[in-house]
């Protein structure tokens, strides 16, 4: 990647500069962008090889792979930005099937005119997230699209991990009497994003919960509890995740509304917009289905980890051919917690 000759090229202007079409042309400008902006921040031995693909050592076990395209508006929000989100999201997708995440690949679609300073911030945040998680970005790509055809930056991350044969979790293993645990308060990522949207005009101290969960999940595995299913309740929130599991496993679920951890600001912001925190996205939470006799042990292990302090049992699994997820409301009644219909839009009525 060191094909640019420092003597002839002016360094990237990270203060005033903007992405232009030449940054995606594959020529010298592309090489310079990659070297000065990406490699310098994300740097590691594999990325530094500068080849079209990274050649990596591989520990024993079964290979696990996942990919996720990240689009988020606004790009920067309280608690994070698209950069760390792209790292956490893919690591979490690997971790919830039981894998140890090893490597990430990242590809960027940049919109012409995007400020280089913002891009540098995003890449720095990615680098920090990757190094904190111990999962390097080993290869990448960038393309530039014309102004108006993109939303600043889109980032796709692909992750590779390994899992010992037989240790993987899948969504079809929930059984009647199992307990449902969530690792902490729900709805924070979605509401943090919503509160930033220009026209909603909220002032709320709600930060995204974006975090890499493989550490917490490793601690959960180490507890020895019989975990049946693990999922990260991102888009569509806890309600959608539980409906997926209920369908895959062919069981019903009963939640206790009073047991759901929801921060007061999130509850209040949801009231304002007519939304239900059960359907709001999380980026640093995990939902676990566990054998009833192991629920306490798992809960203790989760609470001992910084990302699981607020972990709580929120319900249990039962037999139900219709795979309904229901909830006993804090009020004493019952209702269905259904699949999300369409996108959650703020309501006035």
């Amino acid at each position: 990647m060191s094909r640019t000759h420092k003597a002839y090229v002016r360094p990237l202007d990270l203060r005033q500069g903007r992405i232009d079409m030449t940054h995606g042309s594959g020529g010298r400008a592309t090489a310079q962008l990659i070297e000065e902006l990406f490699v310098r921040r994300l740097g590691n031995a594999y990325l530094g090889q500068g080849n079209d693909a990274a050649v990596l050592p591989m520990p024993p076990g079964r290979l696990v792979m996942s990919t996720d395209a990240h689009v988020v508006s606004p790009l920067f929000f309280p608690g994070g930005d698209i950069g760390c989100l792209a790292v956490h999201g893919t690591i979490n997708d690997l971790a919830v099937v039981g894998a140890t995440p090893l490597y990430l690949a990242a590809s960027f679609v940049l919109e012409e005119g995007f400020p280089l300073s913002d891009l540098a911030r995003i890449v720095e945040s990615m680098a920090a997230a990757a190094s904190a998680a111990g999962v390097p970005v080993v290869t990448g790509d960038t393309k530039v699209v014309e102004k108006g055809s993109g939303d600043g930056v889109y980032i796709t991350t692909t992750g590779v991990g390994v899992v010992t044969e037989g240790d993987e979790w899948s969504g079809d293993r929930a059984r009647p009497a199992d307990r449902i645990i969530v690792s902490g308060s729900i709805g924070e990522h979605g509401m943090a994003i919503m509160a930033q949207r220009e026209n909603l005009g909220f002032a709320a101290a709600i930060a995204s919960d974006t975090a890499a969960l493989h550490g917490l999940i490793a601690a959960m595995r180490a507890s020895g509890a019989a975990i049946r299913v693990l999922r990260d309740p991102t888009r569509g929130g806890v309600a959608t995740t539980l409906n997926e599991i209920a369908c895959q496993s062919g069981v019903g679920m009963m939640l206790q509304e009073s047991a759901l951890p929801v921060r007061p600001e999130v509850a209040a912001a949801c009231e304002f917009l007519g939304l239900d925190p059960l359907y709001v996205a999380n980026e640093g939470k995990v939902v676990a289905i566990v054998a009833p006799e192991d629920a306490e042990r798992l809960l203790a292990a989760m609470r001992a980890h910084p990302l699981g302090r607020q972990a709580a049992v929120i319900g249990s699994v039962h037999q139900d051919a219709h795979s309904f997820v229901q909830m006993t409301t804090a009020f004493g009644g019952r209702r269905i917690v259904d699949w999300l219909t369409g996108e959650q839009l703020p309501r006035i009525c």
Partner: protein
Amino acid sequence: MRFIDEFRDGELASGLAAAIRRVVRRDREYRFMEFCGGHTHTISRYGLSDLLPHQVRMIHGPGCPVCVLPIGRIDMAIRLVRDAGVMLCSYGDPMRVPASGGLSLLKAKAGPGRASGSDIRMIYSAADALLVARQNPQRQVVLLAIGFETTTPPTALVIKQAQALGLGNFSVLCCHVLTPPAIASILDSPEVRQGGSVGIDGLVGPAHVSTIIGTQPYEFVAEQYRKPVVVAGFEPLDVMQAILMLIEQVNAGRALVENQFSRAVTREGNRKAQNLMAEVFELRRSFAWRGLGDLPFSALRIRREFAEFDAERRFAIRYEAVADHPACECGAILRGVKRPSQCRLFASVCTPENPVGSCMVSSEGACAAHYSFGRFADLERVS
């Protein structure tokens, strides 16, 4: 949340439920209509039916502004964007409502033609629409104004503000409707008039609409139709108390307008808001309600003095009626004659993802509420 959480207390609820069980007579059924979608939502969201004795049956009324908005009105909004090239500002609620030709505002936003992402904007407040107009002086900006008396005064305010500012690029597609005429239409329908098996024994009156209009406009229901009305707040304890008050009135053979929501509603309502509405709007001779049909003097239009802010006049655009699916039972459901599960399209052809009729459109519609919160009860009954 003060003034909210106290009204959702589970323990008080069981006390109220006991009080309801105590007064309910075993030898009769009580059929109450909650007019407002807000009450429907509360009943399903908190599972109130589980706390009520089986003698009490709640009928979900037409009080959801999105549900009663006829397809032809959404078509008008889409035509304004596509043919007249305006920038349309809409609340989030109507965005998903199906229009003609498989469209909706969301789909029109995504689809081909002149509409691009920026031409249909979702807003949270009427004031936002005014702001969009001021920020885009080169564009015509139209506010799709929906809602009952609650949402109407803010629309009146922005029209007056636009006039004061001399904004030449702002107008309103007025779809505001009125609550009392819709109540009258339901009570006037032959099935309900006959009473007997499909009668309505009383009404839970709207909460937030009544903060504006007061309780007085419901007095005709008590006087002319001899039905009790209890105006109630939207929290679950409010609804339970209202039901208790209605049962007591029915048992005593009384028909009065009572106010359970006295913390926010008076008999007179908000005079300032009423005057503002009267200044800017006048009655339409007739207006089409989805599910209920054309109702006389049931909606508002912008007065001639503010004609330049009336999108219907400015763009010379006309309403064209679009028929609902013939098998849709919304009309009967809204009058309490049928239940959602008695419609043969329910949960098969007609689902929240793919609503056929008005009752499935918003989560507060009778069919949608039953679909997403209550259909397990049906299944339990048959299985």
